[in-house]
């Protein structure tokens, strides 16, 4: 008997594997501070870099880090996009994601940017352009996750 040339069928499958991720004491300190509306970084004693969020070692100097520092709640956008096509698990579109270098930090942290008029999606709104100032804003319900805060454009300087 020859093999039929009809399109073969598919068999359904799914992966459902729950995890509990161990985050370590530095990330725990970072999330505890978020509950108190503070953003923590770490300072490498050898090179002075202030990394946000904090980590327990410096990849440049390859030495342990033991100092946590609080950074400012304002900063400047360093990379930005407006997501317009939804995917599984994404928030409703359009939404803004940006990397922001907070005052006192030498690295950037990623989060959503709210409070932006996204009426014209053919160009990037000026208040979320790279180098635009933003402020971290905390929600009322804080659960020790990075989404306890978001960024909003700083307008009161203009």
């Amino acid at each position, binding site marked *: 008997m020859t093999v039929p040339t009809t399109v073969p069928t*598919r068999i359904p499958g799914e992966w459902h594997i729950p995890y509990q991720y161990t985050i370590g004491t530095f990330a725990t300190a970072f999330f505890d501070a978020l509950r108190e509306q503070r953003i923590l970084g770490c300072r490498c004693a050898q090179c002075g870099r202030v990394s946000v969020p904090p980590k327990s070692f410096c990849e440049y100097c390859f030495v342990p880090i033991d100092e946590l520092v609080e950074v400012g709640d304002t900063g400047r956008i360093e*990379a930005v996009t407006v997501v317009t096509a939804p995917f*599984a698990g994404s928030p409703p579109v359009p939404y803004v994601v940006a990397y922001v270098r907070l005052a006192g930090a030498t690295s950037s942290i990623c989060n959503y940017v709210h409070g932006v008029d996204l009426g014209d999606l053919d160009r990037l709104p000026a208040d979320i352009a790279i180098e635009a100032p933003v402020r971290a804003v905390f929600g009322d319900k804080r659960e020790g996750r990075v989404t306890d805060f978001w960024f909003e454009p700083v307008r009161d300087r203009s």
Partner: protein
Amino acid sequence: MSPQQPAVLGFGQTRYKTSRADVGTPELIFEAVSRALADADTELTEIDAVVFASAPEVFEGVYEPDRWCVEAFGGVGKPLIRVHTGGATGGSGPLAASRLIAAGLYETVLVVGLQRTSETADAQAVFTTIFDPVYEQDVQLNVITGIALVASRQMKYFGLTEDHMAWVSTKNFGNALRNPYAHLHREITEQEVKQSRSLAYPLRLLHTCPRSDGAAAVVMTSAEKARGKSHAAYVAGLGCAADVYRIGDRIHDDESDFAIPRAQAWAATEAYQEAGITDPRRELDVVEVYAPFANLEIAYYESLGLAPPGRGIDLVETGATAMDGDIPVVPSGGCMTTNPIGATGLIRFGEAAAQVMGRAGDHQVDGARLALATACGGIDQFYTAAVLAAQPA
């Protein structure tokens, strides 16, 4: 480079489609491997070891696909090495094989690349799982948003416009029309690119790549053994490099900018040094760059030393990287028209080898003697570069 210079004897690839519904996953591999062995005029019994390159197996939905596919790549009874560096996997595979051959550990090595992206409905949901669950997954990053972030800096600081991206897309789709294996065979205009659906500013659908099912395979051996064969390409130089994990740690510093991926430059520099290349723009005849997005191709012109930092757009404006330019980039159409992720880097390597062997068919660059192939993975984190030459060192 070394006493045992590695060489490429043959390249085999499957037809690429959104869904290769006609074949199961091992069958897909068998198709590529049997073609590579035929192209290399090599029997399976001559293969001393197999390097299996496949990227996140969440796509296949079967953990350890190397178990499932071992018979399909002829791996039974042979040493098997699995390589995984995300999207760069297909570039790391031939790099590993080359080093094994150069070290004299195995003479003839089969490299197999696989990915089937059609088995799950949402590729970007798979990609969110490659971000750390502590700080980054909650913000729902994925590959498209990650590359859009790169584009935002290219536009702000390095002169990138929608016009440049539209030109790259149109060039690559046009090149794919001459490649019978390419997934997308579709003539597009710059106007269509600019009017295609917005995904994540400034990226549009026609700046990106398809999801492809497919496999590729390459047969490699020592230069000594290659001399007895009717055709071969010679590995003149190799490089690879990893960058830091967090995007926020590499957006810019005194020496680098996220918009000109530095780890690609590190990998290329190593490969050029090994190959004795000092002026890649003039010395290379053709480049098969792993750039799944139009803006990234322009960024890599700079990382790869084909243009000075911030001047990648000049190669667009002068048409230098078109098929009829002085340094054609992705004559095959590249990953913007075919992207079976873990196999994609191996396709770049196989295409570069085919170019210097003069066996690239309708998309052959006339007289190509020196070709560069790259691969990129893990949101601009892992990179490889390989220089293929028509003649042994």
